[in-house]
C-alpha cells in the first residue's frame, strides 16, 4: 500500500479541531467520496480531534491519502501524549465517558469508518487510526 500524500496538523485547541475537520472535508472531496462518506469521515475526525484536545491534552492529526492498487482511501492518525486509556473495550462502549461528553466519541467514530484501530499505553498516550476507502 502506497501513501500518496501526507500532511500533519497540530491539534491543541478548538480552532485546530475546526481546521482538521476542514482538511478532512477537502481531502475526502478530492478523493471523490460520496457526500455521505465525506460527512461520516469528517464527523469521525471531529470526534477524535476533540478527544485528543480534551482527554489527551493536545496532539497531532496526520492525514494520508492511500492507494492499494485497486482503490484509494483516506487515513487519519490521531496521536497524543496524554494519560492514555486504561480499558479500551470499556472506552469503546456507547455511553462510557470519563469526561462530560456523551460517551459516543470513540465507539461512534468506529461505526463511521471502514477501518479503526486504537492503541494506548497508560501514562504515555493514545493513537487512533481511521480509514475510509473511496
Amino acid at each position, binding site marked *: 500500500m502506497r501513501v500518496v500524500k501526507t500532511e500533519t496538523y497540530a491539534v491543541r485547541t*478548538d480552532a485546530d479541531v*475546526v481546521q482538521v475537520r476542514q482538511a478532512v472535508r477537502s481531502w475526502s472531496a478530492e478523493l471523490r467520496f460520496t457526500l455521505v462518506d465525506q460527512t461520516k469521515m469528517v*464527523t469521525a475526525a*471531529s*470526534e477524535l480531534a476533540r478527544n485528543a484536545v480534551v482527554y489527551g491534552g493536545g496532539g497531532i492529526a496526520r492525514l494520508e491519502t492511500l492507494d492499494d492498487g485497486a482503490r484509494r482511501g483516506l487515513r487519519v492518525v490521531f496521536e497524543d501524549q496524554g494519560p492514555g486509556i486504561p480499558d479500551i473495550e470499556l472506552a469503546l462502549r456507547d455511553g462510557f465517558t470519563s469526561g462530560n461528553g456523551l460517551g*459516543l466519541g470513540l465507539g461512534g467514530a468506529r*461505526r*463511521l469508518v471502514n477501518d479503526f484501530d486504537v492503541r494506548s499505553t497508560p501514562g504515555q498516550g493514545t493513537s487512533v487510526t481511521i480509514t475510509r476507502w473511496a
Partner: protein
Amino acid sequence: MERIPILRMGEFLLVTIQVDMHDRTALALQDDLTSRIADSGARGVLIDISSLDIVDSFIGRMLANIAAMARVLDAATVVTGMRPAVAITLVELGLELPGVRTALNVEKGMALLRRALPPAEVELDEDDAPGAAHAPDAAPPPGGTKGAHARRED
C-alpha cells in the same frame, strides 16, 4: 470570539448557524439563547442548521441542551434544515437528540412552533390595532385632503 446572532420575531427567537462552529462558540450560543428566552419571554426557538456540514456529538449535545433549557423556561424548540447526509451520519454515530423537534425547513418549523402555542396568543400577536387602519381613498375624512395625505404611508 465569534458569536452566533439571535433574531427575535414576535414570540419566537430565530438562529441560523452558518459557520463551522468552534466548541466555545457552540457553548456561547447555548448560554446566549437561554438568557434571551428568559429576558424576552419567547415561547419558541427555531434553530436552522441547513448550512451545517456535520453535527457531531458536541453540537448534538448543544442542541439537546438548548431544547431542555428552553422547555424549563416554557419555550418550544425546533431544529430545521438538517441535511440528509448529516441525518444518516447522526444515526450511525448513535446520537438521538432527545427532546429536540425537527422540521424539514424554516417554514415548516415556524408552523410547528405556532401550533405549539395556545391559539389566542398567536392571534393577539398578529392582529393590527384598530386605530392603525388606513383611511379609505374614496372617503376622505373630515378636514380635507391635507389631513388624509398626512396619514398615508405610500
